[in-house]
């Protein structure tokens, strides 16, 4: 768990949008009017809003009108907000209901992800549970406006008094949280809330305004009750000390009953106005999440590592008939993607964890959502005609480099407390660009080579298994291309097959497999690139062509299971292909063999070094394999391992990306790998162990760029294990 950045920075001028100021003024004027009105009405000091009079006119008319107008406005606004959802592309998200309910219970109700940012998270939990608790009280207050002495069913007796105590504490806790949140926003200004100039104005005014509304609700609710209680004798004894209502009761005690009635009724009116204003205000900004988050979490991603199909309900064979591919204009997004935009809380956690954002690439996931939401609110206004102009998103609200900057590492999705997805959006936007020919020049060559030769370097197919010659003197590696078979297939993938350095991973894998007594074969020239990152770069047809060729080769090999050393291959075969035999990453196999005693590792010769493990995104976050590699490392006697605390496991920091990302030339201030290497150095490590050839490439380069040659080294897990094998 990391702490919030609470470093105070120079406050930028806080500017309120004009409409917020107008609404605020209206609220103040209405509250003032309420004060005047109840003054005239309180000739007969009654503490029941339903029986109060306003200038000889029954107040209950007002208290019926406020909810009616409020609910009507809210209903209208929601209906208008639903239009983009209804126009969006279809996406089936009603599957796996038990899993979805579990997500709602964990991520929504239990706020499971909130404490990942401790201070903000705990404060949010206070406000969230405060709201849940006070929902009953708010409902009661609404009805109390026109039904004398109303209590919710079941809240009359003992439960009612327990509830009263709980809600008094809740209201107080929420107010305290609101004050701390406001101070945070105004004084400490956590860096992740900042809005870079290119993305428009600072969002602090909206945040403060809403905090003000919440505070007003808490104060007016407590004041309403305190006014009544102050007029009763001995009331204070039953109040929980230090709660808001307790404090107000003490302040008001001794005032004339008529004044107390006025205060109480004014507070009631302010509460009613604020409550329904707040309700209708929610769908105008980031507080829409108060309504949408429940649904967004219910419909969130339930499968990891996969990518959505080009279009739901269209078979792969029918894809050629599609007029257009991917997301080009707003209405091409699926309804879940639109719901994501509505649900963004603007908390900045995604962008805070986004490696692209960290190294200064022109991508901040948070603004992928916010820009799209702003676009939707502008084109689909609450009042007036909808004007979706079909303008391409790329070139208007998104920039090509922004979309190509994403490494699909998944850190943003892992962090989002309301289940917003980004990878599918990135891939869909890329599909749209690929369809229009907008592919970075640096990526076109490798794509063309992948099409012609099945690997991004245009290396010869017949050289694909050339690495096998270097396994060991006289070592025999079975090759499917020579008609040899085995139950286990080692799917090598392109970089490990062809890159001089990465071939060592293949050779180490072969030796470790042999050492563990695994009879395995390698496909050879008919193995193509898994296409993992071809798909994630939006070239779906090329991916499908590669998948088809590989699927045929794998089927023809007769393998019963597949082992890979490249997590990208793992993820492709496991989550992008279908009908494959079980696929296992070599680290999982090593851990199993160590547990069973089939592999034994010798003590480290040089015990002076400190090791750390870097979780590859597609092994960790996307496939939940965190422990097997660590277990394998820890099996080496004499090895000292440290964690990159705060940046390990599902918070691992992407090395820079694999596959085609290796070829893409991003605009960036520094390399992701350099950030990663520094994190390892800060953790006190001299050796980074990873389990992915792309991580190895990126980190190896980064060590040189960071000037840490000789001080820091990187190796693959299989190389480490291979070096310690006991024959």
């Amino acid at each position, binding site marked *: 768990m990391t702490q919030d950045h609470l470093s105070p920075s120079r406050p930028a001028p806080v500017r309120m949008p004009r409409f917020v100021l107008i609404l605020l003024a209206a609220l103040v004027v209405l509250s003032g009017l309420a004060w005047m009105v109840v003054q005239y009405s309180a000739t007969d000091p009654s503490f029941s809003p339903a029986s109060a009079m306003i200038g000889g006119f029954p107040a209950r008319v007002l208290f019926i009108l406020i909810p009616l107008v409020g609910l009507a406005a809210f209903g209208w606004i929601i209906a208008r907000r639903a239009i983009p959802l209804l126009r969006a592309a279809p996406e089936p998200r009603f599957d796996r209901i038990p899993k979805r309910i579990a997500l709602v219970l964990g991520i929504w109700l239990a706020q499971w992800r909130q404490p990942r940012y401790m201070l903000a998270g705990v404060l949010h939990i206070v406000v969230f549970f405060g709201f849940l608790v006070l929902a009953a009280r708010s409902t009661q207050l609404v009805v109390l406006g026109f039904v004398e002495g109303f209590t919710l069913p079941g809240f009359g007796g003992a439960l009612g008094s327990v509830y009263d105590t709980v809600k008094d504490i809740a209201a107080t806790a929420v107010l305290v949280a609101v004050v701390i949140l406001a101070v945070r926003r105004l004084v400490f200004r956590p860096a992740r809330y900042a809005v870079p100039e290119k993305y428009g104005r600072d969002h602090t005014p909206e945040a403060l305004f809403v905090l003000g509304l919440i505070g007003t609700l808490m104060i007016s609710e407590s004041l309403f009750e305190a006014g009544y209680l102050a007029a009763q004798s001995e009331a204070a004894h039953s109040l929980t000390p230090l709660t808001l209502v307790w404090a107000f009761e003490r302040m008001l005690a001794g005032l004339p009953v008529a004044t107390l009635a006025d205060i109480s009724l004014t507070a009631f009116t302010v509460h009613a106005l604020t409550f329904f204003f707040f309700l209708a205000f929610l769908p105008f900004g980031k507080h829409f999440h108060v309504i949408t988050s429940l649904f967004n979490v219910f419909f969130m991603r339930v499968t990891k590592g996969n990518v959505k199909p080009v279009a739901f309900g269209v078979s792969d064979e029918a894809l050629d008939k599609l007029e257009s591919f991917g997301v080009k204009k707003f209405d091409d997004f699926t309804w879940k993607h639109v719901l994501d935009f509505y649900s963004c809380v603007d908390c900045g956690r995604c962008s805070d964890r986004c490696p692209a954002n960290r190294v200064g690439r022109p991508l901040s996931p948070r603004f992928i959502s916010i820009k799209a939401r702003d676009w939707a609110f502008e084109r689909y206004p609450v009042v007036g005609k909808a004007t979706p102009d079909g303008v391409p998103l790329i070139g208007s609200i998104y920039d090509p480099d922004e979309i190509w900057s994403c490494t699909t590492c998944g850190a943003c999705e892992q962090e989002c407390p309301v289940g917003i997805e980004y990878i599918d959006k990135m891939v869909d936007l890329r599909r749209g660009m690929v369809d229009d020919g907008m592919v970075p020049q640096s990526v076109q060559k490798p794509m063309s080579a992948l099409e012609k030769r099945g690997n991004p370097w245009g290396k010869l197919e017949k050289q694909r298994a050339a690495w096998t010659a270097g396994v060991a003197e006289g070592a025999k590696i079975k090759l499917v291309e020579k008609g040899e078979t085995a139950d286990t297939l080692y799917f090598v993938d392109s970089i490990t097959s062809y890159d001089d350095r990465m071939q060592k991973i293949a050779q180490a894998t072969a030796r470790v497999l042999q050492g563990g007594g695994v009879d395995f074969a390698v496909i050879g020239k008919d193995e193509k690139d898994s296409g993992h990152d071809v798909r994630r770069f939006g070239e779906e*047809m090329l991916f499908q062509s590669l998948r088809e060729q590989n699927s045929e080769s794998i089927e023809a090999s007769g393998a019963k299971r597949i082992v890979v050393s490249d997590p990208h291959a793992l993820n492709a075969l496991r989550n992008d292909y279908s009908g494959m035999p079980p696929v296992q990453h070599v680290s999982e196999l090593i851990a199993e063999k160590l547990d069973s005693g089939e592999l034994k590792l010798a003590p480290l010769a040089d015990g002076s070094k400190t090791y750390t493990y870097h979780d590859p995104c597609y092994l960790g976050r996307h496939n939940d394999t965190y422990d097997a590699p660590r277990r394998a490392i820890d099996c080496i006697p004499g090895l000292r391992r440290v964690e990159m605390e705060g940046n390990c496991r599902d918070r691992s920091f992407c090395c820079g990306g694999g596959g085609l990302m290796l070829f893409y030339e991003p605009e960036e201030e520094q390399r992701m790998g350099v950030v990663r290497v520094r994190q390892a150095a800060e953790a006190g490590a001299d050796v980074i162990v990873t389990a992915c050839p792309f991580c190895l490439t990126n980190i190896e380069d980064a060590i040189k760029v960071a000037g840490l040659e000789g001080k820091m080294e990187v190796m693959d897990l299989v190389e480490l294990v291979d070096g310690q094998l006991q024959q």
Partner: protein
Amino acid sequence: VISREEIDMEILVCVKRVPDSAENEISVAPGGSDIRREDLVYSVNEWDNYAVEEAIQIAERDGGNVTVVSVGDSETEEVIRREMAMGAGQGLLLNDAAFEGSDGLGIATILEAAARKGNYDLILTGAQADDGAAQVGGMLAALLDRPYASLVNMIEVKGDGTLRVGREIEGGAQEISEIDMPCVLSIQTGINEPRYVGLRGIRKVASVEIPELDAGALGVSADRVGAGSAKVRRADYFIPASGAGAEMIEGSTEEVAAKLVDLLRAKGGIR
């Protein structure tokens, strides 16, 4: 000033199918007259791809129609189709056994005949081919008796029957010329960013027919083209032995950088 719709240019782009050096390991075949071709994959010549992109951009911007032409056999069709998938309206394959073995002048002669079949305001070629000699563009212009600009890295359609073209001059200087149409330009890489064509794009134009013209249809007499009439013949083909003179700089990164700067300064690389 003529409005954009009225410009409506007919543009011909000459392309060549070549073994892409980026996707092949090129080695010399025994005998030394050619490279090993059994494991080669082919694509459109890179310079030609820029020329096609430029033609399509002109047509999209100022109005017009793009035809892609290539001298080759039936396998060349794939290359023409890929360029059509980018947005060229027509393809044209010039295919005849008699064309085989043509030298640069022979190829230019075949292309000249194809160019005379149409009414092209602008003819583009790549500045050179991966496996070529950068001669066809100029020869074609001469045979057609049209003005020619080579190594063009910028084209601006003026609308009065002329073009403003930019050329990069040795040393990085830029030259701007005006040229009368109809004309022939050879295109340098980097003039634009060619769009990507994927399998999907190619499948979209898979059924579009590409007309084929042979020597007879073109009215090219066999004694002007083909191996028999080639006046330039390849005598040898080899990979030069790596020479001496390479200097490895050793030391820490800082030392290497400092030595490199000194060396470059000494040799006049840095002023």
